[in-house]
């Protein structure tokens, strides 16, 4: 076919380039299509709709005494809720100017200074730091201590020492009553 066409026109290159164009166009469309078809197979691994739906949790704070903590579960993760003592709050604000890996003021981490609410997952590799129970080790800064690789968090949940790069995450939450919050 190519031969006949090109001999007839007397310009072999033209017939060739037309064919080349078709080949290139077809393979490009084919390749793009094949790539797009991969997406559903990648995306199916992302959190499914029902998983996404379990996104908010309400917690009653009234039973928590000053200096006590409880752990709630939100999206399968532990959330630390601590009613801080005056001394802890003071320490946290005093340290605002100290040097730390992820500088943040205490005020930026709480809505009401008395209530410190954070996702209780070490920002290093995801262990649950100790410090919720009175008997737990609280690390060198009196907050939380992650035993997995030795991260120390202060009374504002900020990382002060060890391999974790970030402060304990503050989840989105709102006070729905004086002593009730909705996380998520």
């Amino acid at each position, binding site marked *: 076919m190519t031969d006949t066409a090109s001999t007839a026109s007397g310009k072999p290159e033209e017939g060739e380039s037309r064919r080349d164009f078709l080949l290139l166009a077809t393979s490009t469309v084919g390749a793009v299509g094949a790539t797009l078809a991969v997406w559903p197979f990648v995306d199916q691994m992302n959190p499914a709709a029902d998983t996404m739906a379990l996104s908010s949790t309400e917690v009653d704070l009234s039973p928590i005494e000053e200096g006590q903590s409880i752990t709630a579960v939100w999206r399968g993760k532990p959330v630390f809720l601590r009613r801080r003592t005056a001394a802890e709050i003071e320490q946290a604000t005093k340290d605002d100017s100290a040097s730390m890996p992820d500088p943040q003021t205490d005020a930026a981490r709480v809505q009401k200074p008395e209530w410190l609410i954070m996702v209780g997952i070490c920002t290093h590799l995801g262990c649950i730091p100790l410090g919720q129970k009175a008997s737990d080790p609280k690390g060198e800064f009196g907050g939380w201590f992650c*035993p997995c*690789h030795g991260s120390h968090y202060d009374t504002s949940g900020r990382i002060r020492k060890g391999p974790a790069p970030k402060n304990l995450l503050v989840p989105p939450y709102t006070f729905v009553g004086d002593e009730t919050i909705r996380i998520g």
Partner: protein
Amino acid sequence: MSGSKIEFKNPVLKWVEYRLPIFSFIDSSVGSGYPTPRNLSYWWNFGSLAGIVLAIMVVTGIVLAMHYTPHVDYAFLSVERIMRDVNYGWLIRYLHVNGGSMFFIVVYIHMFRGMFFGSYKEPRELLWIIGVFIILAMMATAFMGYVLPWGQMSFWGATVITNLFSAVPFVGEGIVQWLWGGFSVDNPTLNRFFSLHYLLPFVIFALVFVHLWALHEHKSNNPLGIDIKGPQDTIPFHPYYTVKDLYGLGWFMMFYLFFVFFAPDFFGEPDNYIEANPLVTPLHIVPEWYFLPFYAVLRAFTDEFWFFSWFMSWVMDAKLAGVVAMFASVLIIALLPWLDGNKVRSMRFRPLSWMFFLIFIADCILLGYIGAMTAEEPYVTIGQWATLYYFAHFLVIVPLVSRLEKTGQPPESIAAAVTKKTEEV
């Protein structure tokens, strides 16, 4: 894997062979039609042992899958049921669990053998690199398999390792949620790990096939590290090495079954007999023993580590540095054919390399020990120096020593060396 056709008298064999030359194929791969160096030592048993362990893992694994339930509410219980109620379930599970450890023992020895005898050198570089892919696939398989019984170590090991990917800049969190299929290690994670744990051994099987394809192109290396020059240097694989491999298999099975019957939890962690609890982290998370050296490399990178703060802290944080170093510590093995610049393969003729090889093994064992310890002094500092030494071995010691050392003279040929030995006796 090609070779001469064999002639059969038996009409059935003849009929099959004419249509599908499978008997010639077998004969030229592992039979009398495959010429093998006549001087292979017992260090050459570990490749076939690895293949046998792979087969054992596939068989026991398929049986376990008949009784196992990949759901967070039932996984732990279904494993307990296998141990207590399923007929011989305990045996099959212990064969599989200890088989995993045996697989790594055998393959690590196989790799150190390759390093010592220079089996990675020209023309076996691709064979070596495929080997590194195999060990990577084995690690992924073992990691996901360990999650399935859904004990405390399963859960927390999975949490720590999947969280490694959160160190990737910008997309890290997205990758981790994609791996989990949720916001923490949970049922979707368990399900996909089961699916992949079933799949990967077959991928390994395919990789081993390619590995052997490359092996058979240039044949096995040998303790002298010199090339096969002619038929006088070889003996047929069957019966000489089939019988030697079988003899080695006997000893290996005694070793393996000793653990299965008399110390089945020797390699395991008691914490994994406690069902997974997402709200309580065990005090001391340790991976399986075969990951310990790499885990030590991961943990060496902290903000206080001088090497990190001098050379790396301006491009990445300590967490990412640890993750990069851990993957690099495996991948760097693939570069050995080019890091080593000496033409002489076997370290028998390279005394200085031999010495550094032994120090390197000691360093790997030290890293393994540190990986099992808590993150406290003096372990942290020791782990950091051992990590630096690990990389220095590949990037400084091997390139320099291999290029500068004075090597001995390997013999003329395998045949010459072997016959000389016999005369001496």
